[in-house]
Every structure is written in structure tokens, then in C-alpha cells.
């Protein structure tokens, strides 16, 4: 047990840092869940999109460290990766929609290998660090302590994305088709609606979200190879606990894991991660489809 002084401000800080992590996890896990919910595919390469987004942002920023490069990156890079995701959907995923889960897992695992090495080819194996972007470089003071203002920015993203997704799924025409596709894709197909395009759009949004997560996280730590696997596992845990295919689940799951992480690392640093996986195991045993998920079949 580390000796920390447990004041109110410590707790608030831990909660805030937990929420920061939760926000990141939500953005990524929501994408993973979305793709699974609609396409019924577990895209293992989701983490790869995250990593690619981070590296692209890093490149843009390191090219022009002064100036608003980061904001430029966050505006442009997700779209670049989204287009890339679309290409992947076309080339690979389309062929495996009707395949067994094992085939999908192996194919997307192959993508991890391929994309991971592509990143290595382009950016090398070094770690890259970029700093907080301009207006958010100074920490804010909360009670007696300091908390990075950038992290508050990160936290703000989660409700934004949640709102966007809610709007998209429930308020747009495409979203309506997506919801229909989730309940009965074959029926929609029979009605003459282009399922293929819906799937492409959804997958592209998923890639977009993953990349967005990667870009947002880029100033917070070092960017390097292995990011893809790290986030994949974490997003997985979140999505499984919350329920694959559910946004509410992704939200709840990410908050749970985010807080477990920040409190866990402080209270019992060596056991924190183990507890998180224990949580995943428990959920899979007791309620495999997650808190908000639905039974498959």
C-alpha cells in the first residue's frame, strides 16, 4: 500500500483521471461495439486504426510544432483513417461477413500484423512524444492540486461522442436503417436496401472513432508500436463488460474500468490490471453478453 494522503481533492483527482481514461476507452469501445452490433464482426484491427491515428497526428504535429497543427490533425486525421478503413472493409471484411467467427478473428488478426508492420515501415520503431496543444498546456487547479487542462478536454469528448452516436442512430435516416439492419439484416436485404453500403458506413464510422481516440490520446503519453494491442485489450474488456453492441454498455463499462484503473493503480498498483481482467472473466461467466448486451441468437 502506498502511503497517500486521502483528502477530498485526492479523490476528486482520481475520479477525474478515471474519467479521462473512461472517455478514451468509450470512444474506442463504442466503435468496436458499433461494428460488432451491426456487422456482427469483432474487428481486432480496431486498435490498429487507433494507433495509425495517433501516428498520423504525431507526424503532423512534429512537422510543425508551433502553430495549431494538433487541431489541424484532429480535424483531418480521423477522416484519413476512416477512408483507409473503408478500403479495408471493401478489400477484406466484405468477404467474411458470413464466415464463422474464427475466420473473422483470424482475418482481423492478420490485419493487426499487417497494419502494425506498415506503421513500423513508415514511422520506425521509435517512440514519439508530442506535447499538449496550445490553449491546453497549463494545468488547472482543483482545490489544492493541479490537473492537466488537456485531460478535461478529453473528458469532454465522451458526452460529445455519445450525443453524436445517439443522434446518428436515432435521428438520422441512415441511423434508422442501421437499427433495422441490427435486428434483421436479411429482411432489409430482401426489401432491396443496400446492406452493403450500410455496413461500409458503419465500419468507416468505427474506424473514425478509433482513430479519433488515438489522436486524442497522443499528447498524453508516448506513441509507439504496441499501442494497438494495448488499447484493443482494454477496449475489449470494456465492450464485453458493458455488452458488445451496446453504447450505453460501452459508456458504463468505460466508466467502470476507467475508475477501477485510476483507483486501482493508486491503492494496489500491482493488482489493478488483474482485477480488471477478473472483472471481465466474471462478466463472461455470469452474464456473457454484458450488462447492457443482448443474448446472441
Amino acid at each position, binding site marked *: 500500500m502506498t502511503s497517500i494522503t486521502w483528502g477530498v481533492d485526492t479523490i476528486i483527482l482520481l475520479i477525474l483521471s478515471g474519467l479521462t481514461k473512461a472517455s478514451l476507452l468509450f470512444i474506442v469501445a463504442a466503435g468496436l461495439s458499433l461494428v460488432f452490433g451491426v456487422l456482427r464482426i469483432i474487428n481486432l484491427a480496431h486498435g490498429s486504426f487507433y494507433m495509425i491515428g495517433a501516428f498520423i497526428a504525431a507526424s503532423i504535429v512534429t512537422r510543425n510544432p508551433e502553430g495549431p497543427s494538433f487541431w489541424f490533425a484532429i480535424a483531418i486525421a480521423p477522416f484519413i483513417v476512416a477512408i483507409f478503413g473503408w478500403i479495408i472493409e471493401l478489400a477484406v471484411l466484405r468477404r467474411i461477413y458470413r464466415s464463422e467467427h474464427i475466420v473473422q478473428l483470424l482475418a482481423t488478426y492478420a490485419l493487426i500484423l499487417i497494419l502494425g508492420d506498415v506503421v*513500423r515501415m513508415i514511422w520506425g520503431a521509435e517512440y514519439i512524444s508530442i506535447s499538449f496543444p496550445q490553449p491546453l498546456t497549463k494545468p488547472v487547479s482543483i482545490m489544492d492540486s493541479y490537473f492537466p487542462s488537456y485531460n478535461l478536454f478529453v473528458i469532454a469528448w465522451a458526452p460529445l461522442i455519445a450525443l453524436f452516436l445517439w443522434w446518428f442512430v436515432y435521428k438520422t435516416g441512415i441511423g434508422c436503417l442501421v437499427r433495422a439492419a441490427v435486428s434483421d439484416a436479411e429482411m432489409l436485404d430482401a426489401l432491396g436496401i443496400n446492406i452493403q453500403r450500410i455496413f461500409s458506413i458503419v465500419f468507416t464510422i468505427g474506424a473514425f472513432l478509433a482513430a479519433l481516440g488515438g489522436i486524442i490520446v497522443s499528447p498524453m503519453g508516448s506513441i509507439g508500436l504496441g499501442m494497438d*494491442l494495448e488499447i484493443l485489450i482494454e477496449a*475489449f474488456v470494456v465492450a464485453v463488460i458493458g455488452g458488445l453492441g451496446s453504447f450505453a454498455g460501452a459508456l458504463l463499462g468505460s466508466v467502470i474500468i476507467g475508475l477501477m484503473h485510476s483507483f486501482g493503480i493508486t491503492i494496489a498498483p500491482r493488482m489493478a490490471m488483474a482485477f480488471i*481482467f477478473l472483472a471481465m472473466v466474471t462478466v463472461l461467466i455470469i452474464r456473457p453478453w454484458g450488462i447492457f448486451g443482448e443474448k446472441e441468437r
Partner: protein
Amino acid sequence: MIYRFGIILLILILLFIPVFATPYMILLLTELVLLSLFSTSYNLIFGYGGMVSFGHAAYFGLGAYTLAIAVKKYGLSPFVGLILAPLIGGIFALIIGWFCVRTVRLYFALLTLAFSQLFYTIVFQWYDFTGGSDGIHGIVRPEVLSPSLNFYYFSLGIVIICMVFLWRIIESPFGWSLRAIRENVERAQFLGINDRLYRLIAFILSGCFAAVAGALYTFFQRWASPDLLFWTTSAEPVLMCILGGMFNFFGPAVGTMLFIFLRQVITDYTLYWPFVLGMILLFLVLFIPQGITGFVGDILRKITKNYSGGVKNAS
């Protein structure tokens, strides 16, 4: 028949190849032999049992650490470690399997993955007992097994014995029942087969043999590291079974051989072995899902037309 001849030929090759091989090749061969056991043990539940586990590295790693800890921490003989490994592997497989066989398909895969990550994390963090991220180093081999050549024959011997056991299990009534469960669970149940029990038994056996492979591997490499339990290690036997063909006893071994061969050849030319591996895997998964042995088998069948039972009854 051809099959038996092929096996004898293979064993002869494995026995005599070291005579012509460079020391490096002997190391590769040892790795090949050990990983073949790993992937064949996996195929018991994968190809024959129809269970897609993404956490098989757990047993490999547990076997490895059993030997490492037995030797370094408790000063036991590595041979004791080798005997303990399948026991430990089996116990954990029993516990994990008990939960896992109650789930199906996707959730089975996820649960096996979650368990193996859990164990990875525990091994990674438990510095005092497992050496944490550093792993355990400096496992000493007894003098007689120090030279690579000797160790190769030692491994080969143990692996062959294990393979014989696996073969007998697969060709036994139990093995047939497992296949039936894979083909049609409901029907197998109606025949009176308690599928959960059989799956659990297969899971445990598979874990035991994987643990032996892991223990030998650590004995071979002289260290154990948490990576052995990471999920990417779990992906390797899956890959090798798919590569070589999962409906054939020697498929995984063939796949392992191809995998190692490709890895050697390609890393000589380029740094980007994962890229090439990924491309090959993608190609296989999309176009040749039955693996190399399945593919070759199909071709052989078409050529020889010796295949009894290829004609559809027209009544």
C-alpha cells in the same frame, strides 16, 4: 499404407537430420519439435473438438513457469519440473475449463482469452514469485543435456511419446465422441454423450500437453518470460493449425514447420516478418480455409480418384 510410411520417414528424418545440420539448425529443429507439440495439443480441442480457444498460451506459460520456479526457486530437479508441469497445467485447465465449457462459440473464445490475460497479468505483476516482467533466467541444464544436440534428442523423445498419447486419444472412442460433438452437439447428446464432460476432459488433456511443451521450451531456452502467456502467443497454435490443416493429426505439425521455415527464410530478407505473416494468414483464411494438408489432400484426392465414397447416390 502411404500414411504409415510417411510417418516412419518423418521420424527417420528427424532422427538423422542433425548429422547434416548446423548447430543453429539444431536449435531450430528443437523449437520446431516443441512448438509442434504445443500446436498439436491445441488441435485436440480446436480441430477435433471444435472449440476455438484464444487462451491456450496460458497452459504453455504455466508449464514453463512451473519448471522455472521449481528449478530456480525451490531448487528442484528440472525433471521434477517436467513432471509437475502437466499436473499444474491440468489443474488450471480443469478450473478454467469448467467455466469455459459452459459457454459457446464467441463467448468461449472471449472467456479463454480473458482467463489467459488474467494469468498473464498476475505473472507479470507478481515480481516476488515469478520475477515479474523480467521473467526467470538462468535455468541450468544438467550436464548431459547441455549440448544442443543432446537436448534435441531428449525433446524429440518426449514429444514423440506425447504425440503417441495424443494419437491414441484422438483415435479412441473418446476422440470419436469429441469429433461427433464438434459435428453436431445435439445429435451427440442424443446418442448419450455428455458433451460438457467430454469437452472438459479434452480441455484438460490439451492443457496438460501444452504445459509439457511449455516446460520443455523453458528448459530449452533457459528462461521464462510473461510473454509466453500473452494472447499473441495464443494466436500462434491457431495459426499453425489453420496453416497446416486442422482436421488432420499432422496438420498442426506441418503448419508449425511451415511457419518456422517461412519465418527463417523471410527474416533473412526483410525486417517485416509480421507483415508477410499477416498477408499469408489473410490469404489462407480467405482462400484456403482447410489449410495446407487439407488443400494438398483435396488435390491428391482429385488426382488419384482413389477416394472411396465420392459419388453421390442417385436413387
